[in-house]
């Protein structure tokens, strides 16, 4: 600013000091204030009146801790109550690489710290891969490890690493290893049963998740604010009838035999004939449930139920039961068995071994497993009316449980095929009597023998003993249905004949257990193979029970497609039966009765 010279004195007198108009100022000030306060007021009204609900709710939500209470999935237990499959707590370890980067943390340090706890066994994890995951740019969610144990997670949490969180993810463990994996089935990543019993009983096993919400400060509940809790309802455990030890022995025995004979499939069914309880259900097409990723689709099913085959000679027991029950034969009935049986229409029945004309008793026909003899005697069911004879035969096959599901209620069961009698073609009319031209699954076939063993009363096979609720209370499963298929006396006579099969004169000699009375029947069926479009191979089977005069265990052994000249039920399957039965008898504490076998005559 330039300096001005002092102003010359005013020429006119200074004007009078004009006061402002206070009224106007005050008014203006008032208006300004009022405006400002009205803003405050308006905002206040907005907060307190219009938006109040929303803010209050938001505040409450901020204070409220909502925690999902996960229901523990029920276990699948063996017959002794020990878990075969069990759901346990586990935690997924999750990293937030973006947060780690923002916090200027070194992924390499993280990786080396975490590596000591991750992997199985702990410490075996690939550190470089871990570092890559932790350093992934832009990512906010990287799963470092799935389903670590809670104790391991606690150690990881104690490291205090920013950006590492845990996510509850219960896992199913198989503490006894691979026991009846195909029966038990698997649980998928959503925690739902995807096969076997896990699937069949999923709704029972899964339970209901609960929720707890409370007002919290720094993670601690604020007293007197009240808790809203819906308790989780843990799943019910299913107690099966599976005896782990017998199951294991059966699995070992069938695996050995399948490997030895290079067969395509082997199954073993162990049953208690009195209760229908399945004690073991082993199939060679199995997998390790702790590592299901390596299993093929074929292995994931349960071939003891889903695989059907033509039973062959083991079905003769049904035919003979029918004959004896109808009163047309008895074990001592004398039959002249020709070398072949020409049925007309171009179909000739042969026996397994060529022979001349034989004089066999009905007992001998079963012991030597004569197809011709079986056909000849079965014609006696209605000597002059083939249609009626077929119908009678069909009724017995059906009453023994063939052609419909076994009743176990597991997914994927195939009921097999038992065509109605009217639909049997010419050759089928003769072959059904000795077990060709129809198909069954392993459980169905074993159940037939359980029926004979149980004095003619068929008890629907069952896998479930009962249910153990979350509170530990055991509820027995409903008793399985029982039906009298043949009379006790018929069953006894058939049983006596089956002892001849296992005698030195029969086809099942290698099923003998010294000191015990064993009854059973061999089967060597022609096996239909889709890939070769016809019969090219065999199904070797043996089904039997012991002690024959007080049956407590029935075992069926089925080996499909054994390679080599040795493909007979008596040589392939009977030894497996012998092995599993000897073990099971000891395991169940079944002593020999000490009675003598009837030793019915074979020939006359």
């Amino acid at each position, binding site marked *: 600013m330039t300096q001005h010279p002092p102003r010359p004195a005013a020429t006119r007198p200074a004007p009078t000091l004009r006061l402002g108009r206070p009224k106007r100022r005050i008014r203006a000030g008032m208006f300004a204030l009022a405006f400002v306060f009205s803003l405050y007021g308006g905002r206040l009204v907005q907060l307190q009146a219009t938006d109040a609900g929303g803010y209050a709710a938001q505040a409450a939500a901020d204070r409220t801790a909502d925690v999902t209470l996960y229901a523990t999935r029920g276990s699948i237990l063996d017959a002794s109550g020990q878990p075969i499959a069990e759901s346990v707590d586990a935690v997924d370890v999750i990293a937030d690489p973006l947060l780690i980067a923002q916090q200027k943390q070194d992924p390499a340090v993280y990786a080396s710290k975490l590596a000591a706890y991750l992997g199985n066994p702990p410490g075996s994890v690939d550190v470089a891969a871990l570092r890559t995951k932790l350093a992934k740019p832009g990512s906010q969610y990287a799963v470092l490890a799935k389903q670590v144990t*809670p104790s391991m997670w606690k150690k990881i949490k104690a490291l205090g690493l920013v950006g590492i969180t845990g996510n509850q993810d219960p896992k199913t463990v198989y503490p006894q*290893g691979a026991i009846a994996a195909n029966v038990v089935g698997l649980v998928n990543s959503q925690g739902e049963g995807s096969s076997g019993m896990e699937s069949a009983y999923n709704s029972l096993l899964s339970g209901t998740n609960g929720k707890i919400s409370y007002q919290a400060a720094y993670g601690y509940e604020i007293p007197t604010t009240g808790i809203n809790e819906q308790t989780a309802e843990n799943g019910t455990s299913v107690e099966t009838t599976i005896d782990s030890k017998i199951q*294991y022995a059966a699995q070992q025995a069938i695996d050995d035999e399948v490997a030895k004979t290079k067969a395509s499939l082997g199954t073993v069914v162990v049953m208690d004939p009195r209760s229908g309880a399945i004690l073991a259900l082993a199939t060679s097409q199995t997998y390790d449930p702790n590592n299901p990723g390596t299993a093929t689709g074929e292995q994931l099913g349960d071939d003891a139920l889903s695989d059907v085959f033509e039973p062959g000679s083991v079905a003769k027991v049904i035919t003979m039961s029918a004959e004896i029950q109808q009163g047309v034969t008895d074990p001592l009935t004398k039959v002249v068995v020709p070398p072949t049986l020409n049925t007309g229409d171009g179909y000739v029945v042969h026996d397994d071994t060529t022979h001349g004309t034989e004089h066999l008793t009905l007992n001998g026909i079963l012991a030597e497993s004569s197809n011709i003899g079986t056909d000849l005697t079965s014609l006696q069911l209605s000597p002059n009316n083939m249609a009626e004879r077929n119908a009678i035969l069909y009724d017995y096959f059906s009453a023994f449980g063939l052609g419909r599901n076994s009743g176990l209620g597991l997914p994927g069961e195939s009921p097999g095929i038992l065509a109605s009698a009217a639909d049997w073609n010419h050759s089928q009319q003769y072959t059904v009597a000795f077990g060709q031209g129809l198909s069954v699954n392993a459980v169905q076939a074993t159940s037939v023998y359980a029926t004979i063993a149980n004095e003619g009363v068929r008890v629907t096979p069952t896998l479930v003993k009962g249910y153990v609720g979350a509170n530990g209370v055991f509820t027995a499963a409903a008793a399985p249905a029982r039906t009298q298929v043949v009379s006790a006396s018929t069953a006894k006579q058939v049983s006596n004949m089956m002892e001849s099969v296992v005698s030195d004169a029969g086809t099942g000699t290698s099923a003998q*257990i*010294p000191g015990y009375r064993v009854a059973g029947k061999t089967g060597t069926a022609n096996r239909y193979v889709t890939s070769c479009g016809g019969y090219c191979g065999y199904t070797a089977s043996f089904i039997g029970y012991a002690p024959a005069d007080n049956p407590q265990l029935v075992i069926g052994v089925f080996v499909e497609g054994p390679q080599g000249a040795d493909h007979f039920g008596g040589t392939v399957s009977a030894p497996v039966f012998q092995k599993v039965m000897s*073990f099971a008898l000891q395991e169940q504490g079944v*002593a020999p009765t*000490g009675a003598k076998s009837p030793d019915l005559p074979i020939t006359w």
Partner: protein
Amino acid sequence: MIEGFAGRRSAIPFALLVLGVLTIGLVVLLMLNTSMDDNSVRIQQAQQKQASLTDSEQELAQQLAGLSAPSSLASQAAAQGLVPNPQPAFLNPTTGVVLGTASPAPTPSPTPTPTPTPTPTPTASAASSATPTSSASPPAAAGGTASSTAGTSAGPSTSGSPR
């Protein structure tokens, strides 16, 4: 005009009383709140401890189940030179009768290898160590002579077959 006013006592004691009651009330309230807070923290801690105990119980139970699993027992038994008994026979302790045909056990397969202690997932160790002949059976029933079973269901066993 107001009679008896001069004779009225001083208001101070009453004020003190009110103050005292107020103070005690406040202190008690504070203590009550503190103890409730304390309890809430203790409950939380106890729950955490319970959770961790449950976890370790689960882990131990799994380990036990793994060790007592048939496969693990079989391999342990084989490691000790036990073999499955191929011929079940029973001894009736009351009559001394042998039920079944007892026979000497087969020779164990050569030099059974000791197995490592099975881990909670016993499949691996069991599979690796089971000897070929004796992998089918846990040790309970192994041994050549009759394994006696107290109170067998064999009944009177009048005609035992000691062949």
